[in-house]
């Protein structure tokens, strides 16, 4: 490792951007609703990483506090989303997004 090589904040931001993009592409590509949910979690986590990075960059503890609110919203979203998936699965016997197309006309 080179001696004067330093990991700056930009490295963390680029990593978060890559994670966010992978999550977004996965959300568009996958058909299984559960895996689409996991991709949403990936995107939320990338946003958390950005918050923490900017908290260090601007030397502001508020960035770390915001992460807790993101966590709470993510937990509530997972609880509600999985309950909806369970309810859909009871009726339709399938957990792919294409199964829920009664309103397609």
């Amino acid at each position: 490792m080179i001696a004067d090589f330093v990991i700056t904040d930009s490295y963390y931001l680029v990593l978060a951007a890559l994670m966010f993009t992978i999550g977004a592409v996965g959300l568009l590509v996958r058909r299984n609703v559960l895996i689409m949910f996991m991709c949403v979690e990936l995107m939320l986590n990338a946003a958390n990483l950005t918050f923490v990075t900017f908290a260090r960059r601007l030397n502001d503890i508020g960035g770390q506090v915001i992460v807790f609110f993101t966590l709470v919203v993510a937990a509530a979203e997972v609880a509600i989303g999985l309950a909806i998936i369970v309810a859909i699965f009871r009726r339709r016997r399938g957990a792919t997004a294409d199964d829920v197309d009664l309103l397609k006309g």
Partner: protein
Amino acid sequence: MREVLFFLFGGGALAGSIGVVLGRNPVHCALFLAQTLVCVAVLFLLEDAELVAAVQVIVYASAVVVLFLFVIMLLGVDREEAVTEPIKYQRPAAIAIGALVIAEILYLTGHQWATGASSVHGTIHVKGQDNVERVARVLFTDFLWPFEITAALLVIAVVGSIVLARRSGQRAEPPLDADLLDQPESSEGASVYSSPEATS
């Protein structure tokens, strides 16, 4: 040392997120998600956010992933999904949109920089206070009202998920009209799950 840790766990997080997207088995996807979340927790540690890292491991990497695995096991969808593409050109379009997003973000990262007042809610390091105390002081003073609202949000979410997932008395057996509604596509939907190789 920090550089080695960053590349090790940053690479682990990226590999895990790619595994979530590409994994064929939902159980594998959930485990890849756990790997990503733990790696991101280590990155939080590297950025002096110890409390956030601990909460990440406790809430995300254990509770949320266990909830995912529980639902996967409960529903029995731990089978491979069909690789058919219902909407034409959906995957190339999705990858093109992803490339556009990443190009845009990288351009902004390289050419712009966020400005703003620093230390609005207090600095990260204060002599004599550890990270937990710093976060707690801001959370229970400046962010007290949002904190109370999250309590209400969690109660609503818990009640809502119980109501949604509850098996009500008359649904113990599938009603007749539901069978009729399922009829035109039940055979197709069932074949996707029972034998993915038959449709592909």
